């Protein structure tokens, strides 16, 4: 058993990693809450956004991943919006199950296209601040992780405020529970479905920018995050914003402490354990409604 300071350091590291998980999970839970489907393309689209950050960093463009955040986030929003308009909205024929299949198909196409065009090699970017550390007690905290933590919190807070206060946010929440009522007050339901999907994907764009300084990208690098995001969303309660936030941090800490106590190889087992326990004990999740 490691000392208390080491455990504390593990908790802080887990919290820092959790910020990104929250961001990815908020996107997933928003799409689930409004469209009532799991976005199977979530991981693939995250991977795509990470490649976008990678190519923007490389010559001839050469933009720092943090500076690329507005571009990639905005681009991801537009991409998600158009994917909904041109693909999901057009071919779902009004059935939620079809959306599920379309996003699954989309992920297969994106994954294989990425393999074809980008090869299976692992790519990284070298930013000068990648190895910089801040000392906090027994913990050495990488600067990029601190930045990503606060940026993710800020973005999630801003999104939460937007959903709570703006007319569009209210309309999206209204739509999630009462589609016909929404139509009757004149809400353009299809457009807001596309906007919601776009916002969900925009979260991935932001996450990609925050991840790339310390992470690698390959055509399969989205998969790890999907499992985590999915567990986070189930843990927090499907469709719950607060749930995704709390869930993301719990998962981050679990993963970090699991790695500390059981070693890197077994560290992830804690996430699967949480997933199984939640399904057994509280299938609606921490913040989920009844049933």
């Amino acid at each position, binding site marked *: 058993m490691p000392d208390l300071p080491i455990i504390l350091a593990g908790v802080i590291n887990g919290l820092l990693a959790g910020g990104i998980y929250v961001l990815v999970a908020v996107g997933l839970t928003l799409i689930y809450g409004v469209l009532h489907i799991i976005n199977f393309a979530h991981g693939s689209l995250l991977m795509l956004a990470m490649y976008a950050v990678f190519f923007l960093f490389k010559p001839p463009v050469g933009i720092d991943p943090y500076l690329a955040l507005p571009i990639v986030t905005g681009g991801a929003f537009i991409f998600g919006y158009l994917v909904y308009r041109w693909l999901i909205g057009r071919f779902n024929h009004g059935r939620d199950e079809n959306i599920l299949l379309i996003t699954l198909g989309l992920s297969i196409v994106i994954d294989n296209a990425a393999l074809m065009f980008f090869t299976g090699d692992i790519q990284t970017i070298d930013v000068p601040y990648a190895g910089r550390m801040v000392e906090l007690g027994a913990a050495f905290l990488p600067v990029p992780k601190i930045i990503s933590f606060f940026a993710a919190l800020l973005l999630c807070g801003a999104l939460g405020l937007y959903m709570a206060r703006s007319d569009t946010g209210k309309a999206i929440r209204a739509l999630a529970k009462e589609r016909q009522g929404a139509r009757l007050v004149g*809400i353009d339901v299809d457009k807001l479905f596309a906007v919601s999907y776009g916002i969900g994907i925009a979260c991935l764009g932001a996450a990609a920018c925050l991840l790339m300084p310390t992470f690698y990208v390959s055509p399969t690098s989205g998969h790890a995050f999907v499992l985590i995001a999915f567990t986070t969303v189930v843990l927090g309660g499907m469709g719950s914003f607060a749930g995704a936030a709390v869930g993301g941090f719990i998962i981050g800490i679990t993963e970090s402490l699991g790695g500390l106590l059981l070693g890197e190889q077994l560290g992830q087992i804690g996430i699967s354990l949480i997933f199984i326990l939640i399904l057994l004990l509280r299938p609606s999740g921490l913040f989920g409604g009844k049933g």
Partner: protein
Amino acid sequence: MAPPRVSPAGPPMLEVKALVAGYGAVRILRGVDLTVGAGEIVALLGSNGAGKSTLNNNICGLFRPFGGTISFEGEPIAGAASTRIVDRGLIQVPEGRRVFPNLSVRENLELGSYRRGRAARPRNLERVTTIFPRLRERWTQLAGTLSGGEQQMLAIGRSLMGEPRLLILDEPSLGLSPLLVEEMFALIQRINADGLAILLVEQNVVQSLAIAHRAYVLENGRVALEGPAATLAEDPALRRSYLGH
């Protein structure tokens, strides 16, 4: 209160002509003609399955009619998007209220002016809470936790937020206690007294005829009876089929 017997003879706002509509391959409406004039309360009566809601949903753009025309203030609206129809000020309070259960009373009302009347939102919030003081008491409560009567008030209040020019009320008395039903009809009359045209879709024949200027009776997808409400209230056929005497 003495029921108004003379229709305020305004120009027709809503004109439905030879409307044929239904779901999939099933025809429910087989040629319906109906008008609502400015300032009128028009009752649309009929038993379950007569096609009242089908007519409603086609007028509001939730479904596309198979044939016939619908025009609102001279503009054809048959098959138009529901957003465009709301833009014109033709607003429906649907059967079953359809309030947003996960939003507060205030947010529900605010979304009533999502497309229309956004600039006048504060003033209209004030106006709606004057009509329904109960909504003010429930201001921050989630709509899903309200009683049936309160939800009906909220649904009507939400529609008023959009500054409707014509309001369609689909079964507003459904599921309310007798006392609340009385209140609801008195309220509809009061809203109409401000000049708002109302198409009142109801199964509650006696009370609807008491407040309406004109009425239509829908049977098997056709208009079986129509005329001034006072005349229909005395109609022997109508009395036999709906009032049991």
